[in-house]
């Protein structure tokens, strides 16, 4: 399934980062977004960030996907 969910990168450790999805934090692989910085929002699919997205876009989508997030995380 191709669902990707946006989250905020809180902290980066090498190729991984702590990503916050509406309060639920998960360690995410950041190898596919090498330019990422702490504070960026990323789209995450199957444990891996696939794109850096603008914060406003991410926040609106997070509200929208609130229900699906409960299942995914």
């Amino acid at each position: 399934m191709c669902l990707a969910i946006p989250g905020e990168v809180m902290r980066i450790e090498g190729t991984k980062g702590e990503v916050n999805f509406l309060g639920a934090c998960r360690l995410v692989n950041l190898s596919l977004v090498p330019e990422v910085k702490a504070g960026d929002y990323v789209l995450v699919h199957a444990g891996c960030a696939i794109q850096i997205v603008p914060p406003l876009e991410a926040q609106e989508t997070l509200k929208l996907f609130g229900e699906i997030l409960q299942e995914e995380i």
Partner: protein
Amino acid sequence: MRNDSEFIAEFQTKFSRMNCSLMEVCGTHTNVIRKAGIPQLLPKGIRLLSGPGCPVCVTGSGYIEQSVQLSKNQEVIIVTFGDLLKVPGNTCTLNEARAAGGRIKVVYSPLDAVEIAENSPGQEVVFLGVGFETTAPVIALAVKEALRKGIRNFSVHPALKVLNPAMKALLKDPELSINGLIAPGHLSVITGAKSFAFLPEDFGLPTVITGFRVEEIWLGLTALLNQIKKGCATLENMYPQAVSPEGNQPAQRLIREVFTPEDTEWRGLGMVPGSGLGLSESYRNFDARVRFQLGPATSNEPPGCLCGPILLGKSVPNQCPHFGRSCTPEHPVGPCMVSSEGTCAADFYYGKIGVNK
């Protein structure tokens, strides 16, 4: 999610005389569209078809059967995405194989499967690699991680697919007539918007890429219908916040490095040349088919099951004799009812929205 009733009234008036078929091929789009009741709100002449964009749905029962048989090996741990569990194989589902004693674990990420292998010395961990280009780079990362860490008890049973060859096969089908396409939102994050340029250029097909908000889908439909009305065919990227023209280059490089194209079977389409991804030569020893000497998979579709034609937009769920009777999300007959992105599941849950208005 709410519909703006003024916008919809305007839409219905503007396009009331249109007679055309629009297709979406992304399982998440299928789900969002049906949940919002969009098909029931479109003017009568506009048909919305669901294409083969749900990776679980297009996986043949033969692949599931091979995975079920592998799970009977006492030294094997099958690791999979959750939505594969209820898909019927030729004899049973992975859920049933698990109930019968097979070791089958569910993960959110293929990278977790590598961790399981690391923590299970002496056991062979086989990850069921199902997905499109969105998932392929993540599985590639998992394979490279296993190689880097010297984890030898990890392999992938690949059922990865690449969308464009299937789209071409679909568009060449004389029984199918599509006038506009909503291209997938997240798959195009990886492949880039340009990867769909061939649709208007070679097939004259109006194409839009949209995000997943209801408003975005309505805007995408409007853009497609405007193109059809004007008689033109272009690619419009209406999701530029996430989809760039070139896509995710590191991901594309990973796919080219770890995988190689192969011919593979799609439920509904049959064999589509070059539409699958197998492990490339340097990574061949991570291919479970080689490690366990698996032959080609043969699929037995259940009699009467219309998943195949439904995946191509040739039939709709309520035309299937099993829909809502012997086939429900609780006990599915075919995969279109299993996945939350499947057309039948979406129609089962949301099909009645708007009907009684």
